[in-house]
């Protein structure tokens, strides 16, 4: 579904992502692991078109989207939940979700979103900025989901979320994946969560892939070795 080849990107003079290759199949959940500052966020931003691609290609369903603007990538089926949430704080919860809606939805928010995140329904008239950190995170996920993506990019979705909801998120991600045949890329620091959701894991180190394994063959010891050096 998503195929990344020779991707390079960075900030100003510094290159953060070096010739990175990656692929994720249909309905696959791929966890991107890595310590702080290893380029997870940079990778996701580049995939989303927020940072320009210096070299390489990004294919979604066979189509190269590397040259496109963010909003065009959304139209091609990529959705993004940024690290730090970045919800629209003066818009209400409902409006926040509606920003992600496709034209075909005619302004209606699908019920399944609210059944996935009931707290958002209770708070739908409240300003996004007034929500608690964890609530904002759920809002950001909901906002991404309503654009009916083929590929969902989640950057550290568990940051600041209460344990029970982390479990819920893991569950619902798997559910959504099944329901919509969604490809999910999720970056994580917390190994347990990654092992819980992912079908496959990759480890990023200084902008390069240094390890790759399926969830079943994943070995917590080797992985944490990569993550704690």
């Amino acid at each position, binding site marked *: 579904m998503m195929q990344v080849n020779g991707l390079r990107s960075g900030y100003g003079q510094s290159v953060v992502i070096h010739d990175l290759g990656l692929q994720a199949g249909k309905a696959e959940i791929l966890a991107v692991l890595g310590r702080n500052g290893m380029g997870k966020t940079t990778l996701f931003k580049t995939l989303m078109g*927020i940072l320009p691609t210096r070299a390489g290609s990004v294919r979604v369903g066979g189509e190269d989207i590397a040259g496109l603007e963010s909003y065009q990538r959304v139209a091609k089926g990529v959705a993004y939940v940024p690290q730090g949430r970045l919800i629209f704080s003066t818009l209400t919860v409902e409006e926040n979700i509606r920003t992600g809606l496709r034209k075909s939805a005619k302004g209606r928010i699908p019920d399944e979103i609210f059944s996935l995140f009931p707290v958002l329904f209770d708070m739908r008239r409240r300003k996004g900025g007034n929500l608690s950190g964890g609530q904002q995170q759920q809002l950001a996920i909901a906002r991404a989901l309503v654009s009916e993506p083929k590929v969902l990019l989640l950057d550290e979705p568990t940051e600041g979320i209460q344990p029970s909801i982390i479990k819920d998120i893991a569950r619902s991600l798997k559910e959504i994946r099944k329901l919509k045949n969604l490809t999910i890329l999720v970056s994580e620091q917390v190994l347990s969560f990654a092992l819980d959701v992912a079908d496959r894991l990759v480890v990023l180190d200084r902008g390069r892939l240094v390890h790759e394994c399926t969830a079943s063959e994943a070995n917590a010891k080797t992985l944490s070795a990569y993550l704690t050096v």
Partner: protein
Amino acid sequence: MKTIYRNVLGGKAGTLDVLVLAAILFAVFPFALDPFRLSLLGKYLCYAFVAVGLVLCWGYGGILSLGQGVFFGLGGYCMAMYLKLEASDPVSTKIQSTPGIPDFMDWNQITSLPWFWEPFKSLPLTVIAVLLVPALLAFIIGVAMFKRRVKDVYFSIVTQAIALILSVLIIGQQGMTGGVNGITDLKTLHGWDIRSDSAKYILYYASGVLLIAGILFGRFLIASKVGKLLLAMRDKEERVRFSGYDVANFKVFVFVVAALFAAVGGALFTLQVGFMSPSFVGIVPSIEMVIFAAVGGRMSLIGAVYGTLLVNFGKTYFSETFPSLWLYFMGGLFILVVMLFPNGIAGLMDSHVRPWLARRRGARLRNAETPADAPPVDSSLPGTATVRSPSPLAPGEGASTPRVQPAH
């Protein structure tokens, strides 16, 4: 001694900057320019005071005042009132119905000097008033606004409104203020004829010296903890508050300092130009003063001086050469500066001239030590989407606010 060198003069680069400015002001211009141009320059230097004050309050403090004309005007008016009283001695005003009061009062049937004019019979009181009146107003505005946490554009608009209020008031009370015409026909300062060529020279030099003194004071502030706190406040006001500082006090302080700069500029302006009018108090001049600072580089005290000179010379030159088209040039200049050199002349110096000099120096000393403090390269390319505030330690003043090495 060493701290003075470092904090006030700004180390080697900073000292050099000041020396260059002093050389330009005191050695180059007086000899290169005829007396008329030089007197124009003296006038521009007065505006430069405002611009330097704005660097402190806007560039460092993040407080954009669109009402600096108020303080410039108040300083100027205080000085003008003294000069006017001196020019209105009973002898030279004997044709009036009430001799001894300013002519415009006589035209407005005022028969005795209003009470608030009384102090301006004395030069010392006048000098005090020049500083105190604007400072007091700035203090009141500052306390009222900053304690209530009025900020950003809201504060800017409030200052703009105050500029408007004051100019409407001055114009409306023409019997006591001279109205739209302002206070004109000023002749002597304590008996000294301010209109003579020699007076112009002396005033020019005096302005230059005071300006440089002001810049040094500004540098001292910036290098002191106040400067760091201002930067910190602009960045994360909450954090400063939660480090135990009363943020409002610091804001009031820089605002008052900027007002004082403007007031001194205004007073010197009155002396050099020989009149003061409400057209300095209004909105347009206040915005122009901000532009001076922006063109010079809002983070650079010395840049502000160059910016003021450049804009005013540009205005004079273009309007002399193209009397009916010059607005295109000025408008274009502002747009270009903002678009191409967001850090003004100082930014231009640092991103282009200094590295170039450093390269040349480096080439000469190829095998000697590495070239001195080349500015850090700004790594954010246009187009990268991460929003990063433009480095507020704009290189222009970077030299004078060194990332100080803790002395071991």
